[in-house]
């Protein structure tokens, strides 16, 4: 199932359009990945099932389904349970990530992020 590194597909779920745009450019241009985006938890769940991306970058604070709730749905659905999820959040500091990994996330990255390093950081967390 794993694709060659260059064609990794990442789903980015964030309600902030500008952040989606910056992160997308960063991951596509620096990481060389294919990036799918969703502006809400609900939309993200649909795309995760339909597209089965290699990883999901998930915002924490969103209206409607927030990050942890979205993660719980992803883990509950066998179709998406195995997709690694990395939280991308402005809510916490890096040193407090423990409580988030406890929820079943593969890791936590904090905002603001350095767009030149984002792809590498995601890859490090996922062991890519």
């Amino acid at each position, binding site marked *: 199932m794993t694709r060659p590194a260059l064609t990794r597909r990442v789903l980015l779920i964030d309600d902030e359009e*500008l*952040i989606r745009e910056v992160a997308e450019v*960063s991951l596509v241009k*620096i990481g060389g990945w294919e990036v799918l985006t969703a502006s809400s938890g609900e939309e993200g769940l649909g795309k995760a099932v339909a597209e089965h991306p290699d990883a999901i970058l998930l915002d924490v604070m969103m209206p409607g389904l927030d990050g942890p709730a979205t993660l719980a749905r992803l883990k509950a659905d066998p179709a998406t349970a195995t997709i690694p999820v990395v939280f991308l959040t402005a*809510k916490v500091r890096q*040193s407090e990530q423990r409580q988030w990994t406890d929820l079943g996330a593969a890791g936590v990255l904090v905002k*603001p992020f350095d767009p*030149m390093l984002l792809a590498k950081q995601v890859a490090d967390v996922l062991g890519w």
Partner: protein
Amino acid sequence: MDAGDNEGHTYSAGRLGDDPDRLRGEALFAYSSDAIVDIDPVGVITALNPAAERLFGYHARDLVGGPVGVLVPDRSAEEVASLLSDLAGRRDTEPYTTNYRRPDGEVIELSVTTVPLVCTDGSSAGLTVIARDLTVLHRSQASLASLATSEARYRAMVESAHEGIGVLDAGLRVVFSNPRLAAMLGYPLEEMIGLEMGSVIFPEDAPSLTPIAARGLRGQTEQTEIRLRRKDGSTQWAIIATAPFPGEDGVIGGVAGFFTDITDRKHTERTLQESETRLRSYFEYVPVGILLVSRDGLVVNVNPALCSITGYERDELLGGGLSVLLGPDHPARIEEIRVLVGALLRGEMPSFELEQPFVTKDGRRIWLDVTVSLMRDELGEPLEVVAVVQDITSRKDAERVKDEFVSVTSHELRTPLTSIRGALGLLTGGVVGDLPDSAQRMLDIAVQSTDRLIRLINDILDLERLSSGKLSLALEACEAAGLISRAVEEIRGAADEVEVEVRAGSVDGRVWADPDRIIQTLTNLVGNAIKFSPRSTTVEVSAQLEGDHVRFAVEDHGQGIPADQLETVFERFQQVDASDSRAKGGTGLGLAICRTIVEQHGGRIWAESVLGAGTTFSFTLPVVVDTGEADLDDRRSEPSVLVCDDDAAIREVVKTMLEASGYRVWTAASGEEALAVARARHPDVILLDLLLPGIDGRETANALKGQEDTADIPVVVLSVLTAEQMAVEGIASRVGKPIEEDVLLTALRNALGGAHRQALVVEDDPQLAEVLEVTLVRHGLKVRRARTGREATRLGRALVPDLLVLDLALPDGDGYSVVEWMREQPWLSTVPVLVYTAFDLEEADRNRLRLGETKFLTKGRTPPALFEAKLEEMLDWVAQKAPRR
């Protein structure tokens, strides 16, 4: 002497004629209370009267006709003769005194008069001796004198007594008063006589006195408190005790009254009473809830404020425990409080405070602040537990609102910053195309300023959450070495960039700390030091044990801080030199955050500096105290393991698992930390995750093997790879992930056994255990000691001993249960055993104690040399039959 002998006159028959003079003489002789003895001229007693018989202690019949010398036994016959002739010649009849020893040994003093009897012809007819016992007289004189003294003594006592003493007649009039009673009533002593007590007693108290006085007259003794009106009208409180007073004829003639002045005491009582009334009104009206709990844990009183806070009636709260403030669904909290109250009662702490959610009777959810302290009586004995309860719901609500604000602000500020920083980053990174140099320079400025704004927001939020206590410390025992190595690793990149070397100096000690916060502090201090260090200089980080704390120090060789600013650098937005610091990109909050973190740990932070030479920032943290001898023993006996994994959750799970199985556990989050801790603690075995950030597991293992002081420590790796795939030298064994407890424990036991030959000594007597240990160590075994069966089975989980030395009598049972348990464990069922016991054992008992090769020695009967010989035999057997695993 009985009446029958009282017939002295019969002895004197023929002495005188039958005329009235003679008869009077006879009567005098017979009935005189003085002793009369007649002696003839040659010294023979011719007559003695009954009084003489009594005085001298002889019967007349024993003396009459005998020599008078019997009555003067201490004189010789010649002396008596000479005395007689001397007396016969005397003409005066003056009495003289002399001592006489009676036949019963009593010495009496006599007054003696001798009357010579001279016949009409002038010839001597002998002597009449009249003697009187002076002893009786003296005795009665002495008794009279002592009577006089005794009365004087009693008088003096009565006169000077601190109590008022008076005697009242049947009409309760004073017939006697001592000066004190007069003073108490304010009367001159002479006015006291005849004073009617009825007129000085408060009318209200008279009814209580009259019956007592009446009973006093009947001979009973009682006491009561009364008020007396002094002559000047003021009030005198007294306790009056009455006793019957005998009159002249021995019948009760009046009442003696003893008055004790209790005016001061009454005053104190009234003050106390007023104070208690005042306190009671505080208790009733104070707006904080108060709950009083007796020593046996029951609520004995609550005030109205507590009722209004909780919504419960007084009666609903009385009789419950302190737990009425907790509600039924907090069993853990109840246990916690039980422990705290125990500590309170033992005087280990003066009070404790809890914040506690509470559901009122009408179902409202509120927050209570409960401060519990102990009231003691004047002797210091615990009296009651007092809980002061405040409704802090509104404060909690305000806190929650503020927390939400902080959290939302944090998020809301960072969201646009994320896009700004992202867009700028992509631009400066050339991702969207090359830019002219002038534009590049402007963008670099924008990126730097954005980064600084982000740090500022992070620092403000950190400081806010730290000061508000929102970030609670997760304290654990940490190796100073591990903290420093992690912080140094984190900052190394920044240091390399400016060509400053960061070095860990001498490091020692374990501290109670929240590792994340202390690493944040160290990173901050080291980051600062780097910023102010010239190129090619060194920043040294060290930790030293100093009494009850460990002092961490970060030393740079920068320009230094002026003395007057050494304190102010820790204040918010304070900079030594504003232009300088801002150029270095600081937020001005770093040191304030450090200070807050250190102070929350109960430590102190300060700076010392020599201008032009450098600065040292130091902070202290409380040291982890190894408690007492027991702990020392445990530490020596329990095998220790260092668990190195970057995943905190795995570290925690493995630590818990291993501690439950008899291991002492240290943890490290990185390879660097593992190397530092391994050096400092020299664990028995190291469990190492292969996938580590920074230097990975394989490099760490190699570094351990390459370091002389850690080379002999067996390493067990945690990895998903197989041994061949790993190809790491010197690995004892491998444990896959996810970790299975049995597999892990087996791997550790085998690694331990592979490193040393070990003996498990189960012996509760420390001296004996010491002797055994010395012997075993001399034979090259590492000794693990257990004092109880429980400790033995705990250690049995952690290791496979090459030899078990077992004392049968253990404090928590006997050695049989230890052997039975071991027989059930596959890795222990063939361990050789040396049973060392005070008893001779039956064959059946011996069989119950066999595991592998089993030998028995009897305590006290086995000489040390034989014991050692047996032991050696056993050890040889062990070496042959049980090859190294």
